[in-house]
């Protein structure tokens, strides 16, 4: 899988896709959606779709794309290659969401939580397939959050398609399992070949699976936390695991709109009773508006 676009800039998001098989523009197609890397505290989260004509579902099943969770990494890579070979009837597309995008969405002033990000990414990929001219008639999605609400939302967005949202959809529908394989192959490769934009020395890439309870991952996080900059951008700063380490190991930072402001505001009331010098006139608004005051000491 060619992730060179991601390697160029791994702080945003990038879309990869296979060519659209001609048959998928003619015949009614089934499309599966799944993601990989939802839980880990580091590395990208990858959303993938995989689609093929209704009539070729048995061929897809013959590829043994059984429940991707039971497959090893090598088996997944091998299966992905086989799907690539069968590109005359199987198409795929994926969205790689970088850890930085995930963190900044979740920590932004206007919160954009992981579920919304996931739902929007999945809808975006289905729309992408339609825009590419794939004749999608059925969609199967592995659920994120409440299956009913998610299904309702997708059905509303795509009224001409039969949408099925189910938990463990990758074990039920081969086209979802195939999507899951694409997502996992992409994520494994992205994590393995991660280009650190931080020129971090003595960087060992031995961060384990990336799951918060993986001792290797926890050790790696503790080893690479930097008191002022936190972590390399491989890490999802919005993850509790990461925040817990930052709270312990990193310096505090205050922002203009940080909570501390309110607390400071309350102190201001008391300061009314401390006279600020008999006739100390405040500086003219020209200076106040620009945060300028006289220097009484260097």
């Amino acid at each position, binding site marked *: 899988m060619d992730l060179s676009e991601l390697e160029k800039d791994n702080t945003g998001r990038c879309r990869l896709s296979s060519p659209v098989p001609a048959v998928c523009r003619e015949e009614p197609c089934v499309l599966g959606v799944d993601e990989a890397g939802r839980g880990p505290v580091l590395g990208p989260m990858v959303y993938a779709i995989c689609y093929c004509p209704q009539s070729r579902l048995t061929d897809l099943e013959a590829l043994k794309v059984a429940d991707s969770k039971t497959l090893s990494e090598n088996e997944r890579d091998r299966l992905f290659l086989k799907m690539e070979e069968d590109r005359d009837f199987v198409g795929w597309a994926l969205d790689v969401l970088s850890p930085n995008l995930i963190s900044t969405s979740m920590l932004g002033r206007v919160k954009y939580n992981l579920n919304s990000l996931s739902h929007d990414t999945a809808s975006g990929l289905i729309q992408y397939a339609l825009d590419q001219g794939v004749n999608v008639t059925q969609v199967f999605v592995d659920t994120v959050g409440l299956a009913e609400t998610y299904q309702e939302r997708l059905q509303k967005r795509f009224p001409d398609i039969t949408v099925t949202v189910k938990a463990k959809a990758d074990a039920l529908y081969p086209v979802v399992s195939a999507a899951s394989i694409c997502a996992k192959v992409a994520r494994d490769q992205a994590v393995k070949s991660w280009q650190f934009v931080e020129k971090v020395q003595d960087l060992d890439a031995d961060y384990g699976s990336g799951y918060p309870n993986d001792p290797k991952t926890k050790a790696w996080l503790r080893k690479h936390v930097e008191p*002022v900059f936190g972590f390399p951008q491989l890490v999802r700063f919005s993850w509790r695991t990461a925040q817990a380490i930052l709270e312990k190991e990193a*310096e505090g930072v*205050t*922002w*203009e709109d*940080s909570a501390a402001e309110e607390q400071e505001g309350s102190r201001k009331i008391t300061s009314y009773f401390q006279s600020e010098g008999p*006739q*100390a*006139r405040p*500086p*003219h*608004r*020209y*200076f106040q*508006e*620009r*945060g*300028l*005051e*006289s*220097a*009484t*000491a*260097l």
Partner: protein
Amino acid sequence: LRRKVEAECLKDASKKMKGGLMFIKLANPCSGEGAIYLFSMCLKQLFEIKIFKEKHHSWFINESVQSGGLLHFATPMDPLFLLLHYLIKAGKEEKFQPLDQVVMDDIFPDCILLLKVLELEKLLHHVTDEKEIDNKKYYKYSKEKTLKWLGKKVNQTVAALKANHVSVGARVQSAAFFSGDQVSSDKEEDYIRYAHGLISDYIPKELSDNLSKY
């Protein structure tokens, strides 16, 4: 370990002496309290030091982080504002006096540097009456002349406020969030009031009130 970034000519002691740059403490002409100024011996010029001090800032200085994020500005300043402080005080004695007996201050002894500013005599014409006896000049503070001089300052400031599109109208929460078009709706009187207020940061309260009437 507090770190600072400063110009070479300030950092290196020898260069500093050569450039004749000295940080001095003088009486702030409005409050009378001590404030920091920069004096350049070779330019014979006085600079006011203002600090940009806003919450929630810090510096990256090379390979270090520095909390506070202060920024010091040196701005050329008309030394008459500081000399006025002494001339007004001496003026109360209602007699002509030599300058070196007027500009004296045991709290801020560096005030004598003000006597070295460029074209001092020309400056004094704006705010004093003078007499010459045996080639020695004697000065007495003139309120009329000073108000006239300050009137000119207000006009110059009004012109500068317009040229720099400074918003003088209804108070905005910060000049940074200002769209230029509203400036045009500001009235002349707003400019004069704003300019008077700005200059009043550099003169004693009583003179500010007289200037307001003037």
